[in-house]
């Protein structure tokens, strides 16, 4: 139940007391700031607050201040729906960012069609934008794209027989399904398919079985949290030599720290956020990535995460749409949002269309290899 009026906005208004009050654009957010998905919601909320403060300090949107209203839904779909209703009816917001988790997003989504308010989700699953819902957009790429990207890299190395070892949690299970689904179209054959529980501490039996599968050429580990780090350590423990792929779910410096030397040589699809200094000078994402990292580090004294990046992109997409719409009418904002063309964010370059409310293609993912405990882009 955090209703956080932006501090700067409040103090700026206090300073301006006496002059006519500025009109306000209200933007709502319902995020999992605490609870099981706090690692998503916490950086997302911090990012939004930082951006709103920065925007108001620079004069707001078309001269109007932005008021950010953030609620903490703890990744609970029921709460998320309640907060979405409150944001729309009581707080009278013009747009909503949020849903750190797919569950919360899907619980809120129907409301936005009813009230005709644009909504940008920060959750991963493909069901959010497929089929397309008129008022629902999202910024993260899907697990399906991650599978396609990984398989493209595997086939480009002349391999095709892949073993999967997936976590049984929501992320791992969903990505496993998507990988099985796109395997054939990507020219890849899944020859082994093992799983592990989220809190398991030893996956050597599964890896032993995968490694001894006839003809296997590469191993992919869709998973999230500590599981992939354990798998990576077990992989090194067993001395397996096959090319090893992790998912975008563990694309963070934390993962390298947890997996240690065992992580060297493995590859994963990730956003350019991990390699700010290795992006080409003419890369459209170089500027936003470096801006975001610098601002976040200054505001919070820590590195931003991939998840915070989703919120960064959502906020910029929304501000851009409101500026182009030249209006605070939710429907006009939605129309402008759908017309977004080539907006470079930290996750990728967004171009929405009536058929595509995610707006990213496979180029948003970069295949990175871990080398000496750091990230190195793999030339394509």
């Amino acid at each position, binding site marked *: 139940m955090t209703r956080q009026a932006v501090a700067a906005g409040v103090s700026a208004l206090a300073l301006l007391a006496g002059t006519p009050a500025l009109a306000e654009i209200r933007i709502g957010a319902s995020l999992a700031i605490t609870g*099981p998905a*706090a*690692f998503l919601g*916490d950086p997302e909320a911090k990012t939004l607050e930082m951006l709103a403060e920065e925007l108001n300090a620079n004069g707001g949107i078309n001269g109007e201040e932005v008021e950010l209203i953030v609620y903490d839904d703890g990744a609970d779909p029921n709460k998320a729906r309640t907060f979405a209703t409150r944001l729309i009816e009581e707080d009278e917001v013009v747009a909503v960012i949020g849903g750190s988790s797919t569950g919360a997003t899907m619980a809120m989504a129907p409301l936005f069609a009813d009230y005709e308010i644009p909504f940008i989700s920060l959750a991963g699953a493909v069901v959010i934008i497929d089929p397309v819902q008129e008022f629902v957009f999202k910024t993260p790429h899907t697990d399906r794209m991650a599978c396609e990207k990984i398989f493209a890299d595997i086939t480009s190395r002349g391999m095709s027989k892949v073993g999967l070892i997936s976590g*049984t949690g929501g992320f791992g299970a969903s990505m496993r399904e998507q990988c099985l689904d796109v395997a054939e179209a990507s020219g890849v054959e899944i020859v082994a398919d*093992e*799983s*592990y*529980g*989220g*809190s*398991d*501490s*030893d996956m*050597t*039996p*599964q890896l*032993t*079985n995968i490694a*001894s599968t006839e003809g296997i050429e590469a191993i992919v580990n869709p998973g999230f*949290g*500590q599981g992939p*780090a*354990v798998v990576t*350590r077990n992989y*090194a*423990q*067993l*001395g397996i030599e096959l090319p090893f792929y992790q998912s975008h779910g563990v694309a963070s410096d*934390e993962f390298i*720290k*947890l997996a*240690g*030397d065992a992580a060297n040589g493995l590859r994963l699809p990730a956003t350019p956020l991990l390699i700010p200094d290795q992006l080409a000078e003419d890369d459209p994402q170089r500027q936003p990535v470096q801006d975001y990292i610098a601002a976040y580090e200054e505001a919070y004294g820590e590195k931003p995460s991939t998840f915070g990046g989703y919120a960064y992109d959502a906020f910029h997409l929304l501000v851009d749409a409101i500026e182009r719409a030249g209006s605070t009418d939710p429907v006009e904002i939605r129309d402008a949002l759908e017309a977004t063309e080539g907006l470079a964010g930290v996750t990728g370059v967004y171009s929405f269309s009536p058929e595509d409310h995610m707006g990213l293609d496979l180029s948003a993912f970069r295949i990175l290899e871990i080398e000496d405990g750091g990230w190195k882009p793999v030339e394509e």
Partner: protein
Amino acid sequence: MSELSQFLVSGVTVGAIYAAIALGFTLIYNASGVVNFAQGEFVVIGGMTAAALIGAGVPVWIAAPLAVFAGMLVGVVLYQLAIKPAREAPLVSLIIITIGASIFLRGAMQAVFDKQIHRYDGFSGDAPLRVGGATILPQSLWIVGGSIAVFAFLAWFLNRTRAGRGIKATASNRMAAALVGINTGRAMNLSFALSAAIGALAGVLATPVTFTSYDVGVLMALKGFSATMLGGVGSPLGALAGGLLIGLIEAMTAGYISSDYKDASAFVVILLVLFLRPQGLFGARITERV
């Protein structure tokens, strides 16, 4: 053949972790009949404290005992503040208090430490050892050794020392124990302190292999509790055997049948054992006199 030995190594490693957690349950149960649902949190306190200290540059041989001590301290405070004031309450109320304590401790750990996953290097490095066709981490040997040491200590302490026998007497009949001169309050206090210390030790030993974060206690306690039930509540030998057995069943199922049925097969075995031998493999049959 090398596959079988790898599965065995995996089973023993995981089983020893379960056993170390299960051993923590036995002492408090022996003293009070209470199943302490905050036991998993002691494991996490041990792991998180050690991780925080080692992260701050404290050498591991100082950090590890300090972390065990921190766990013990929390155990004593838990007893003094939550259990002792309610000690006349029925057993069920005490068990519910431990559930509340576990939720409170989880929240407190988010505030005191953080929400990140933590790990530190194994005590004897992370280079795997080759045994036959299998590989084993040196830390696994620490965990196995630690579990056996705790088991031996408990077996000796509960049966051979005055304080240990006092704890058992307190559990059996608190009033009678008090009448023959046993300080039952002190026995309870001691059992909470030692249980928490054993839990924290399990956390300190297991963290290089399992990792730790503020919320893993529940799942750890669940597996440890299953091991306790399988082996027989209150029996140190049962906790050790139960833990190893569950670890081995999981590894063999994952290796030979399917990793999807790993957890299920362990629970099926537990159910079967409880049907046929409700007191567990090594539990003493308790006869209630009316």
